[in-house]
């Protein structure tokens, strides 16, 4: 089996709705696909006490994250009959209401696409070295914790 260079999943800034639309459009020629499953993560304006989250600043240990994402991708492809799987995660400052994660799984049938999409989201949240600093409107901050 040949070694493939891990795909870059990171994008600077928010993921635009037009990028997501284009991504869907690009699959038009792949007529073996019968179902897509898409997960979009959006920056939530959490309220903590009197403070509201204005944005999240994402950082990552990028090289390590890409290696681990490659392993996750191989495992997901081995487990589900997928046509393709795309993952995009934001880095940098993302305002509340913007999209920071886009996972897109496609398969001949819906169940594989939906299960693969969900499992990919769960695994990447648990396994990728990514951190988020929640910046409040008053410019103080708190490090985000995944639950």
């Amino acid at each position: 089996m040949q070694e493939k260079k891990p795909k870059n999943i990171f994008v600077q800034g928010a993921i635009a709705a037009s990028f997501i639309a284009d991504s869907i459009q690009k699959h038009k020629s792949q007529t073996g696909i019968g179902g897509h499953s898409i997960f979009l993560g959006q920056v939530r304006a959490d309220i903590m006490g009197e403070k509201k989250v204005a944005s999240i600043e994402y950082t990552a240990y990028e090289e390590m994250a890409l290696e681990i994402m490659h392993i996750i991708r191989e495992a997901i492809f081995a487990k589900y009959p997928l046509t393709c799987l795309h993952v995009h995660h934001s880095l940098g400052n993302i305002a509340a209401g913007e999209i920071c994660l886009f996972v897109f799984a496609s398969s001949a049938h819906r169940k594989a696409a939906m299960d693969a999409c969900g499992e990919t989201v769960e695994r990447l949240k648990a396994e990728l070295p990514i951190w988020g600093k929640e910046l409040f409107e008053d410019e103080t901050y708190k490090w985000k914790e995944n639950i």
Partner: protein
Amino acid sequence: MEINLIIFGKLIDITGSAAMTIKNVADTAQLNEQLHSRYPALSSYPYVIAVEQEIVHANTPLKNKDTVALLPPYAGG
């Protein structure tokens, strides 16, 4: 003998720096010992160590010029 230490997330608030060179540490236990004496707050915060991008839990020997990362709990997505 020196290693390149890179630091992420909340741990940067404790060390005040995202990267530093550490001298005279033969393994990850000695690294932790040196870090905890320099930054006492680190000992009460959870993190894992990655040596050359591999997470290690047991004490692990370090080589000259290794890149060692301190990783606090992940919060992607």
